């Protein structure tokens, strides 16, 4: 019980009714998704056991052959999913449905590439150079997010619309203009895309013989800071107050003197800055330049990661590790004659079950609460009180 209490404290930092639901719902969803995935495979005449053996064997989540390599790759991609996941979670806690992480990720990536190769910076020592890059990346991504926030606060334009538009603007601006124009590498070198970043801009490796770099350490710190921001600061207090009221047009925080308009913009700034970190990770740790064709999608995966992680920083971290692992194991499932998109299907299924969480919550309540304690009755009550304010 003691351990549980500590775990709960880490997770939420405060007493929460039925807090364990937040853990049980995603875990249940993951298991059900894996079972449904197995049935899919089985129904096409292939072996689910084999598929999962290959998938998890190469995921870096469980020990096996070449574990070190897989583990490193898993953490490498996880750190990007966690960045975009946290970005979504921060906005979601404030009642903002931001799907702008994709664009902010790109903005972060191009900013990292530029400050990585641009002349006056490229001769700085590593620590200083990386600091400059990360500060610029977060400012650029933050501004990209804040634009959507500002448009909502001042003009009342819904953030879903503006963030989608900003995603497209970022994509075209970067791929059709910057990368092929002002930021194009010297043609004689035969490089397409932007120039490569200098050695001092490459993230230091922390596991010899792998590509694993400090991005995972950075994101652990950022995840902690996100939790701290949300639960320990006055700003986080206001974000959460907003999150419970904004979508229902309730005014309590505003009436109490919270400058809601400013907070919307600021929250979107923080969200954008964190998403942009992911973009820096991929440039400074994996690609080392902005390529002519960028395979994105991290921003959208971040939504899934955040949902699975129940918008809680620690949850997002764990969900990011899971998704990173599934992606890392993706190529290996082909050995079981299953397309490598299979892990994405699993991811989709998990999200679908999370989306049904009201239902799952209800069933779990019925199962556990009734049994454990006869005097407390089932899900319908909680629905009646908290149904309207689910998140």
């Amino acid at each position, binding site marked *: 019980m003691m351990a549980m209490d500590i775990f709960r404290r880490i997770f939420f930092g405060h007493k929460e009714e039925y807090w364990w639901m937040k853990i049980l719902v995603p875990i249940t969803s993951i298991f059900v998704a894996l079972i449904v995935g197995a049935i899919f495979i089985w129904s096409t005449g292939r072996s689910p056991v084999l598929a999962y053996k290959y998938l998890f064997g190469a995921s870096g989540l469980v020990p096996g052959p070449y574990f070190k390599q897989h583990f490193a790759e898993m953490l490498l991609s996880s750190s990007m999913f966690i960045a975009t996941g946290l970005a979504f979670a921060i906005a979601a806690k404030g009642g903002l449905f931001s799907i702008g992480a994709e664009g902010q990720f790109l903005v972060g990536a191009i900013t990292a590439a530029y400050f990585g190769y641009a002349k006056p910076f490229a001769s700085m020592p590593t620590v200083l150079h990386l600091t400059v890059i990360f500060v610029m990346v977060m400012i650029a991504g933050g501004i990209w997010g804040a634009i959507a926030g500002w448009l909502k606060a001042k003009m009342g334009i819904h953030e879903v619309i503006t963030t989608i538009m900003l995603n497209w603007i970022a994509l075209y601006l970067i791929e059709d203009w910057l990368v092929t124009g002002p930021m194009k590498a010297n043609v004689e070198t035969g490089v397409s895309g932007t120039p490569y970043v200098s050695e001092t801009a490459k993230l230091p490796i922390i596991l010899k013989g792998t590509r694993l770099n400090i991005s995972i350490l950075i994101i652990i710190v950022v995840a902690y800071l996100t939790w701290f921001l949300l639960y320990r600061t006055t*700003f986080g207090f206001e974000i959460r107050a907003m999150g419970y009221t904004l979508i229902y047009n309730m005014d309590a925080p505003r009436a*109490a003197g919270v400058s809601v308009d400013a907070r919307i913009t600021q929250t979107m700034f923080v969200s954008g800055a964190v998403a942009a970190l992911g973009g820096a990770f991929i440039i400074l740790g994996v690609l080392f330049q902005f390529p002519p064709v960028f395979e994105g999608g991290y921003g959208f995966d971040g939504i899934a990661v955040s949902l699975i992680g129940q918008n809680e920083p620690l949850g997002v971290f764990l969900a990011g590790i899971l998704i990173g692992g599934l992606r890392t194991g993706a190529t290996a499932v082909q050995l079981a004659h299953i397309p490598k998109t299979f892990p994405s299907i699993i991811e989709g299924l998990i999200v679908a079950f999370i989306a049904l969480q009201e239902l799952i919550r209800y069933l779990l309540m019925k199962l556990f609460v009734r049994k454990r304690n006869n005097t407390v009755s089932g899900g319908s009550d909680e629905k009646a009180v908290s149904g309207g304010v689910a998140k």
Partner: protein
Amino acid sequence: MKALELKGITKQFPRVLANDHINLSIEKGEIFSIVGENGAGKSTLMKIVYGLYTPTSGEIYVFGKKVNMKSPHDAIKLKIGMVHQEFMLIPRFTVTENIVLGDEPRKGIVFDFKRAVKEIREISEKFGLKVDPLEKVANLPVGIQQRVEILKILRRGAEILIFDEPTAVLTPEETEDLFKTLRALKKDGKTILFISHKLKEVMEISDRIAVLRRGKLQGVVKKEETNERELARMMVGREVVLEIPRVKVERGPVVLSVRDLAAKDHRGILKLKGVSFDVHAGEIVAIAGVEGNGQMELVNSLIGFTRPVKGKIILNGEEMKLVTPYNVRRKGMAYIPEDRKRRGLVLPFKIRENIIMGQHTLYPFSKGGILNDKVINQFATKQVEEFDIRPRDIYISAGNLSGGNQQKVILAREMAMKHNFLLASQPTRGLDIGAMEFVYKHLIEEKKKGIAILLISLELSEVLGLADRILVMYEGEIVGETVPEKTNEEELGMMMLGIKRNERLVQ
């Protein structure tokens, strides 16, 4: 014949025993009232009857048959209907659409609007519930919206109708109309369950009255055999006299000055048409008036929710150029909002969080932007004790508190805030007499401390009892100014309806 029988109904919430072995039997065709303090368990009991909650134990019989309801759907099938305090209507839809929603008459597969309108005309005729079936709900006053709710449940054949504090949002005239309807329903053989904190109303409309206290049934009395005083005593467990003591306080300097203030409502209609007044330190100025005569726009302008079209607001000698809630609160304004659920509280927040909202950025609750949980908890625990918030648990969500206790949380917060002007907008709406007494006590305490208070109230007894000066608002203007010693309910009533005006007092 018994319409409804409850046997040993118990409801245990995680931290609260809301209903404790309640036995009731209600005859067909009677108007049965339930009274009790805030948090006594009235709403919980009604929600059980309507299938919103499942009782922890106990049995329910409807027209002699044992039932086991799992949702309101089952209740509707058993001919039980409920008029909620917050209406569940869709503003953009017409009255007709709202009423038939979910059970539309059809011609083939298409919605038969004409027949729907005809049906509604028939029921509204039958029960004397006049509505225009083609009007949009958004354009209707609250009283009529409530009628639409009633029509909706009648159309579904309800025989047992539950009204949870239906009069809390109504003007006295609208209440009279509602009572006419209730009597007509009774005559038609419908059974009515009625909840109100206004004992006068309860005495007027009920056949029998059940009193709940802290989840337990104290007794059921016939209307003829009781009186308001006895009911109040049964509810609270002690003698309550809702007499407001007259306290004279030396009037201090002007704290708030309003000059020629005009403002529009959210639809852009000019509702406040140039009002001017002052509020002095140690003085309670009451604004009396029928709801919808500009009070809301006045409140919104003062707190910074709407930008006035003209006029000045001078708080503590300083003209407020940009009125925002943040600015006015920093300048010393505290605010008890009229709508505690939407404006007062963040419902999923715990008591401890709600009770510091607005002060959370100040020392000692936070330092350098970082919250100090220990101080917050100590403060919350102290306030919960001092303001008698039940249950005494700072970790309970505000949404799980009864209405009265929600109001106490707001009071506990606002009183603790540094202020010398208090804007109290309908501070006793939906409160039981015990809690009302409590609010009055605190308002008078504030006045003694030399705080300037602007009280906006629809209750004349409250206005007459508390105010040092009364301003009457009618159609966005101040049509009269008086002092309680020189006036009475009749005169105020006439002014509120625009029939009589009087001169402003010379300050």
